[in-house]
């Protein structure tokens, strides 16, 4: 079973908060892995915010292959951080030999390119690196994007935290947005790529549940975009749908909900915008999610949102104080890191709501 959590704060936050958020829910997940995405970075990455940062776990050979490819493409490395690890005996972690976070300057021809061109370059580069390292598991390319890093590993989240020295807060490795999840993919093969949060071109998604329309989603998404690959987890589909609706189609975020959990036909018929809603339900029928799910997502502008399945089979709760908003599968996670908040203000979204938190931490509730 999955548990998911997200922290969005005005202040730079250390991943230890994410570990605490998830650890209190450890009876609900199976402690088989830890994955997190940090966005809007502080600490050592703050001055490199504008540069794409490669998050990679690889063998020595894998690192060399990746760096050679980047060099050949014209990227030049501006900053490199390899977290110090603490490989104590007895830790439950299936560690890769190296973990690096490398910030790169764009190739010269791209320095004055449009934002869109740069974004496509980063995506294509990530896909190229991923393909190059795939054989014999030479390495895993989690993300290559400005102002964000990804860490994923197989093992007990507590031990993974220990291994990467993440339990002790510091101000060197921080972010204003952290999304985290503590379960490796147990539905299909154990693959590092299968752990959410998933990230693509500024969009992040993580989910708690099952996507019974996985095959339909996957078969449809495969033809929609070259970046929609992998499908190691049925939750990847949620990211691709988010990316497709918001970026490729350019539709406002609230239509995401209409795509993944469309209103029943009877309700659509009562709506003024029934023409649009019916058209969406028709044309995007294969992106519907039918099954229990909670999704947490992030947009490129760091707007965070959450919504759940149409039967509210997977709940989610949102708590906040002055400076921080936390989304969690279980309220105990929020209690852990915001113990002094006004819990009466917690939001338990219903099945037809999207909760959106903008960069000013303004919380909006949208009714589908």
């Amino acid at each position, binding site marked *: 079973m999955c548990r998911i959590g997200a922290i969005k704060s005005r202040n730079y936050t250390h991943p230890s908060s994410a570990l605490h958020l998830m650890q209190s829910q450890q009876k609900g997940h199976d402690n088989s892995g830890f994955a997190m995405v940090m966005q809007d970075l502080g600490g050592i990455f703050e001055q490199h915010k504008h540069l794409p940062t490669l998050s990679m776990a690889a063998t020595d050979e894998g690192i060399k292959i990746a760096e050679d490819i980047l060099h050949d493409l014209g990227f030049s490395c501006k900053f490199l951080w390899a977290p110090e690890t603490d490989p104590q005996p007895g830790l439950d972690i299936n560690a890769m030999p190296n973990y690096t976070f490398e910030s790169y300057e764009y190739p010269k021809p791209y320095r004055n390119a449009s934002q869109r061109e740069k974004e496509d370059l980063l995506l294509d580069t990530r896909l190229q690196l991923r393909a190059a390292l795939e054989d014999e598991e030479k390495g895993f390319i989690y993300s290559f994007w400005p102002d964000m890093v990804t860490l994923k590993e197989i093992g007990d989240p507590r031990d993974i935290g220990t291994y990467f020295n993440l339990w002790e807060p510091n101000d060197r490795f921080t972010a204003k947005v952290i999304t985290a999840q503590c379960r490796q993919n147990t539905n299909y093969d154990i693959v590092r790529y299968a752990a959410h949060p998933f990230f693509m071109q500024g969009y992040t998604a993580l989910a708690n549940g099952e996507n019974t329309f996985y095959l339909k989603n996957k078969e449809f998404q495969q033809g929609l975009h070259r970046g929609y690959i992998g499908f190691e987890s049925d939750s990847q589909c949620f990211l691709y749908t988010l990316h497709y609706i918001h970026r490729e189609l350019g539709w406002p975020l609230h239509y995401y909900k209409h795509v993944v959990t469309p209103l029943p036909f009877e309700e659509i018929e009562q709506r003024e915008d029934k023409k649009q809603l019916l058209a969406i339900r*028709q044309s995007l029928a294969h992106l519907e999610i039918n099954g229990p799910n909670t999704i947490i997502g992030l947009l490129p502008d760091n707007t965070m949102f959450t919504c759940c399945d149409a039967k509210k*089979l997977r709940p989610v709760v949102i708590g906040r104080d002055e400076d921080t908003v936390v989304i969690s599968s279980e309220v105990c996670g929020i209690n852990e890191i915001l113990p002094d908040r006004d819990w009466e203000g917690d939001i338990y979204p219903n099945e037809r709501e999207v909760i959106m938190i903008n960069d000013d931490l303004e919380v909006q509730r949208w009714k589908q």
Partner: protein
Amino acid sequence: METMKVNHVTANDLPWKVLYDAGRCTMCGSCVATCSFRAIEAKVERRRMVFSEGNFPEPKQRFSAIPVIRQARSIANYCRGCGMCEKVCPNDAIKPARNADTRHPILTRCLGGDSIKRGGRKNLEGSTRTLDKIRVGRISQMTDPSLDAQRHTFDLLAPFGRILPPKKLPFSSDMDQQLQPTANTPPVNWIYPVIIGDMSIGALSWRMWEAVAMATAYLNEECGLPVRMCSGEGGVPGRLLKSKYLKYMILQIASGHFGWNRIAKAMPHMIEDPAGILIKIGQGAKPGDGGLLMAQKVAEHIQSIRGVPKADLLSPPNHQGLYSIEESVQKMFLSFNAAFKFRVPVAIKVAASATSVSVFNNLVRDPYNIVGGFFLDGIDGGTGAAHEVSLDHTGHPIVSKLRDCYLAAVTQGRQGQIPLWAAGGLGKTGDLAADAFKMIGLGANGVFTGKLILQMAGCVGNDMGRCNACNTGLCPAGITTQEPALAHRLDPERVAQNIVNYFLAMDTEFKKLMAPIGNSSLPVGRSDALISTDQSVADRLQIQHVC
């Protein structure tokens, strides 16, 4: 004593033998009166009785003439095995029995010099149906809970109409972050995933057609099931064309264009749009062949609706002037779209064939987005009249062909853009919900059914040679006949009730299939929910093989 020659037809040459027990017969005459084929007749037999009256044997004989029922020995009036005699006999004195030694297929050809014609379905039963080798095997449990068929709500609807690829939707976002349409989109009607298949007035008795139309209206108006009925090629009563119930009808045009004169003339008076237009190119039961209505069924009202004399009505095997798929797309679809001012979806029906995927690809790639449905009809479909050689030996099974078309769409990322509707022997075992559900899992948006509807009405025909006499106009159940005496055997209200009840039962069964796989909307293309114990079926359909 009659003189018999070896080549004379006897009961043993015919497909059915009438078993008659003179001892139980009361000579009420019900069986003879009811046999629409005149396959039994009253006759007098000479009987010899030997008896002895005294204390010692003194055999005497007595001859008497007694009335009996006897089977007609003729290939014109042979017994079809419909069993109406058995149904009406108060004493169980008579019944037909299948004759394994029949010489009928040879005799009929030898004596008639013409091909054999009949109605019904393919009558070659050699193997288990593919659909019976498939089960719904992916059951939601634990973290992905099953739904409750009684408590949850289910969206059991399927699209009829052309669906645009998402990037072609003409929407733009306004100041309030709302999508607003900037152009028209093709019409799409969301309807019940089971369409009552295309059976014409002409093929059906007027009472049967009326019963189906009544059931359709009742299902919509009273039961909330948006079931649509296809008219078949043969026109629609003028009163219906001008009524509000037209919205439940899909009008069919086929190569004979029968009935369209009247439909076109009624257009200015229509108060509702029809649910759709279905252009019939082919039929699964007799692919490559046009419709066939034998003269004996062309009654006065049929002549009037179709505007024809009493003669065999043959729709050509092809639409005249239809040179290619492209031409059909441009001419027929556009003209029908335009005729109803682009408010009514127009779809096409073809027989499943080794070429179906090519046809489908041509349609799905058409740049005008005007084909609103691909109706694919397999070899097990029924018909009112066809040459037996077509029925039994031409055609293509529906299951793999439907799957091929869906996977062709998947390969191109065009799934759902032309809704796929499948038919051809679905519900053959009486279980349409299961068959339809499996087809939906394989990629169909919905299914259509004809023969099963007749069976709901009391059709006794089956796929082992029973009855199948729809072509003769002598339907013993009053379903496919225009003889007033026979048509009046059918109670339209009762038939409508049967159809409505079957659909209500099927609706419950759909939910009982959707709930365990955890889906509240139709799992179109969810082949991961299907399993097969047959390796070759699993491989061919790309579903999980289990053992």
